[in-house]
Structures are given as C-alpha cells and as structure tokens.
C-alpha cells in the first residue's frame, strides 16, 4: 500500500488487553495502521477509547497486567517479542514519548542537565559528560530555552517551559518515532499554540515521524497529516486530515465532528452523542458504536466490522461500506 512512502511503524491486528479478575479489558483491539516517514498521524477519540494505551504500548511501558498481541514493526523490527532489555535500548533512542502533564513528568529532584545526561548516557555510554552537555544545550536551543538554565531544577520552570524541556529531552537522540500523548492538554491556549508550532518545526527539522494522541480535534487539524479516529478500542476510521474533516464516512467520526463546540455565537446549539461508550470488559464481537449509531444494522451487533479500504489511504471500520454486507442481510 502507498508505494513510494517509507513505513516507519506498522501495526498489524494490534491488541492490548488489561487482564483483570473479571476478564480482559480490551483497551486496544485489532488496530492495523502504518506511520510513514516524517509524517504526523493524529489519534483522536474520547476518554477511555484506548488511544493513550496504544501510545504507551508502542514503548511497552504498560503495567504488568497488560497483554499485547499482534504485530508492531518499528523500522522492520517486531517489538512484541522484544524483551525489556531490548526495549530499553530502543526507548528514548528510536522511539520516544512526550507526556501529557509536564508538571509531573520530570523528576523534581534532578537538575535539567542531569535529565539530559541520563538520557544520553543511557543510550550512548561512550559520550563524555561535556559532549552530553553540548548535545543538551543544542536540544534546548532548538526549543528556545537558554543553556544557562541547564543547572536549574524542573520546579523553576513554567508549564510551557517544562513541556519545551520534555520535547527537547525526547528529541535529543533524534528518534525515528515520537509519541506525543496529549502534549498540550494541560497548557493554556496561547502556550498550546506555541508548543504545537514548536513541535511542527522540530519534527520537520529532525525528520522524525510522530503519533499525536489527543482528544482535541483542533490540535490534530493543526498538526496531523493523517488522522485516526478511535472508539472503544477500535480504530474506526483512518484517513488524510482533509478527508476526515470534510468527508468523514464512519457514523462516529461524523457525530464526533458535529459535537465540537465552536466560537460562533449564533450557533448556540451544541450537539452531542447520546449514550455512553460500552464497557470494554469482556466485550465480544460486533461494532462497538452500535448502541449510539443512527444507522445500526443487524449485522453490526453480531460481527465486528472489517477494516474497509475505501480508497488508497482511507480506511473505515464499518459495515455500511463493506461490499459483502449484502450476503449478511441488511435490516
């Protein structure tokens, strides 16, 4: 698929289940997608849809109760069978993460420079402390922080500055894939815009790919080349940004876009999606949007919809677009 584009990360039928006493919670279920070189894929969905689990699962930093199945290739290497030791070598170097809350994602008692030295030395023990500091100042300069602040502690920075620091920290080793998990959620709108702009610049500068996880459709509109919509553990639609915004096919994507609040004061009516997402505990076959979907068919309840390839680069997980629905009777 998509000849000519280098695939950096490919997920095939990727599943993440949290094992509980009551049975598996299927937080991510059957996700297949690719991330191309130098591209940003936005993952959107409401709280609890599995988008953050998916992000952490790519680094394999989930709690012990999580079980991963399927295939995840990073530059051709399957991550699923990799041991913790092998993953430690990849984390931070090949694949890194920017977290949601910059106020708590830095060790409060470590100086800024120690965060950098730690990261660099972990992966490149041969680098001297001076070289590491040089790399750190360069990375800080890239995010607009003066190197004079290397000796400061995280609490001496504002939220926006800390997030810049996190970004600098996550790109200092030039990873091929950066996972940004709600990187701007806890920041105010002005700082948000600056951080997004910065992330865009940095990404094109270091030529990495990015998976941007957010519930903010405005953020992905700004940043993403392609957008994946997740609902209750399923990746329900994946398409280029404009397609998602102007020609969404999945009923959930359509409903989601209609429920975005806007600043137009003439349009005071806010539409929303009736009902709640299903519990993911022991969830079985069938489309997970079935109870809230305006176009539910009989087949939707019985069988999980396939990933339907509408055209190149546009996938919808919905029976409405499956060719073989005729046989399974619409009703």
């Amino acid at each position, binding site marked *: 698929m998509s000849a000519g584009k280098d695939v950096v990360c490919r997920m095939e039928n990727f599943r993440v289940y949290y094992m509980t006493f009551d049975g598996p919670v299927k937080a991510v279920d059957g996700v297949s997608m690719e991330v191309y070189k130098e591209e940003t894929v936005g993952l959107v969905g409401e709280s609890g849809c599995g988008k953050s689990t998916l992000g952490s699962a790519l680094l394999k*930093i989930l709690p012990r109760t999580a079980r991963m199945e399927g295939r995840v290739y990073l530059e051709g290497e399957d991550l699923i069978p990799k041991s913790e030791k092998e993953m*430690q070598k990849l*984390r931070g170097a090949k694949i890194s993460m920017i*977290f949601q809350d910059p106020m708590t994602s830095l*060790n409060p008692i*470590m100086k800024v420079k120690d965060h950098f030295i730690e990261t660099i030395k*972990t*992966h490149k023990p041969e680098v001297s402390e001076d070289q590491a500091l040089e790399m750190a100042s360069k990375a800080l300069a890239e995010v607009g922080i003066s190197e004079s602040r290397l000796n400061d502690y995280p609490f001496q920075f504002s939220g926006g500055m800390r997030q810049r620091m996190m970004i600098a920290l996550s790109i200092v080793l030039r990873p091929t894939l950066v996972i940004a998990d709600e990187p701007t959620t806890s920041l105010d709108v002005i700082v948000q815009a600056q951080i997004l702009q910065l992330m865009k610049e940095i990404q094109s500068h270091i030529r990495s790919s990015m998976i941007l996880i957010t519930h903010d459709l405005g953020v992905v509109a700004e940043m993403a080349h392609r957008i994946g919509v997740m609902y209750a553990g399923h990746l329900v639609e994946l398409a280029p940004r404009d397609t998602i915004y102007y020609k969404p096919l999945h009923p959930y994507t359509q409903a989601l876009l209609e429920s975005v609040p806007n600043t137009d004061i003439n349009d005071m009516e806010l539409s929303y999606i009736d009902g709640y997402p299903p519990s993911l505990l022991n969830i079985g076959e069938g489309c997970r949007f079935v109870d809230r979907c305006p176009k539910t068919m009989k087949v939707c309840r019985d069988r999980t919809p396939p990933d339907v390839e509408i055209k190149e680069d546009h996938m919808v997980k919905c029976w409405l677009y499956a060719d073989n629905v005729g046989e399974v009777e619409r009703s």
Partner: protein
Amino acid sequence: MAFVGAVILIVFLLAALFADQIAPYDPTVRSGRTFQPPSSKHIFGTDNLGRDMFSRVLHGAKIALLIAFMAVLIAAAIGIPLGLLSGYIGGPLDRILTLIMDAVYSFPGLILAIAVAAVLGTGVTNIAVSIAVVYAPTYFRVIRNQVASIKSELYVEAARAIGARNWTILFRYVLPNVLPSVVVVLSMNLADAIMTEAGLSFLGLGIAPPTPDWGYDLSNGQRFILMNDWWMIMFPGLAIIVLVLGFSLFSEGLNEYLNPNVGERE
C-alpha cells in the same frame, strides 16, 4: 519545636562525646560513701556501691546513643533495601516480604527484642541487633508504600520512556524521593530505640554491669526506693525522658519542615 529538640540532642551528644572529660569520677568504681543524696561533691548522689550517679548518667548517654544509632542504622540497612525492592518489583516477592514484615511488626516491640536479646546474649552489638529487628519493619513499610505510590508518578514512567534501566530508576528517581520520609522515621525510631534499650537493660538483658547504663541503673535503683533513695532512679529516668523527648520534638519538627502540609491541618 525542632529547635528545642535539636538543643536537647546536642547537649546529650556533647555529654556522650565528652563524658570522660566532664565526669568528675570513674563511673564504674567507688568514689565516696554509699547511698549519698545529691550534694556539692556528688551532684546526683551515689548509688549502693558508692559510685557517682552523675558520672554514670553522663557515661550512660554514650551507651544509650551508641546503641540507639547502631540499632536504627541496622534497621534502616535491612528495611530500606527490602522496602525498595518490594515496592518496586511488587508481585509475589512483595506479598512474601510484606507478610514477613507484618508478622514481625505485629509483635509487641519490647517482647520481641527480649526474645532476640535472650537468644543473642548481652553486649552492645547484640542489643543493637535485637532492637534493629523490632524497627526494621517500620522502614520497610514506610519505604514500600512510598515506592508503590512514587512508582506510578509520571516522571518514573517518563524515565522508562527514555530507556532508563530499572536500577537507574530505583536509585535516581525513586530512592531520592522517598528519603525525606526515611529521615523522619529515623529520628522517631531513635527515641523508641532508646526506650527499648533501657527496657532491655532494666530487665537485665542489656549491657552487662558495671558498664554505666540508664536502664540498668533504674532497675538497680528501684531496689532501694523504699529507703527513700530517690536520686538513684530519678536521674537516669530523667535522662531517658529528656533524651526521648528531644528526639520526638526533633523528629516532629523535621516532619513539619519536610512535609509542610502536616502543620496546617486545622
């Protein structure tokens, strides 16, 4: 509060360190008539063997502090690493260690110390070890619970995301963040350790006479209480009370300083 405690502790530390210089008499040999009440010659009086009580109390501080510090350090050396591992690794190891530590913890402290001391015999190190056994679970529990909560902090997850190894996370991210509470437990335990040590010596399981020891002097003195020789138990007892109070005040103040929210409850 911490200041008052600190002053008391410093006074006792100095007394212990310079006991040989300050004490007017050798605490283990006869220095005057027996059963003398406090006077200018013997400001704390003398005991049944004619030994100077003031010198004995001074030298007793040395033993009390030495054993208390040794006991607490041994307890910390056992409790902290086990607590770190247990809290960080979790799972079956955590279950087993917690079970063992809770079992130890459920014994009344002095009874357990008596049992261990009875097995090990007297002597400074043995007493310290038997007290340490009692207090190791305190460290274990505090550390384990703190580690379990710090483990889920975002910066620990972030450390994993940059590829930090488990040892690095444990010693660079987790341990430094639990140390403040260790310091508080440490100073609180010192007070308890002094009481336990005095208790053991009182029961004859502590330091062998004639080494000056508050607990021993207390039990020695109480035999003559009916003769109205109050000074023989008054001064060792007072020394224990004041020193324990000093440690308590100090640890309380330290706790308020390190965890500023504690003081603002009302």
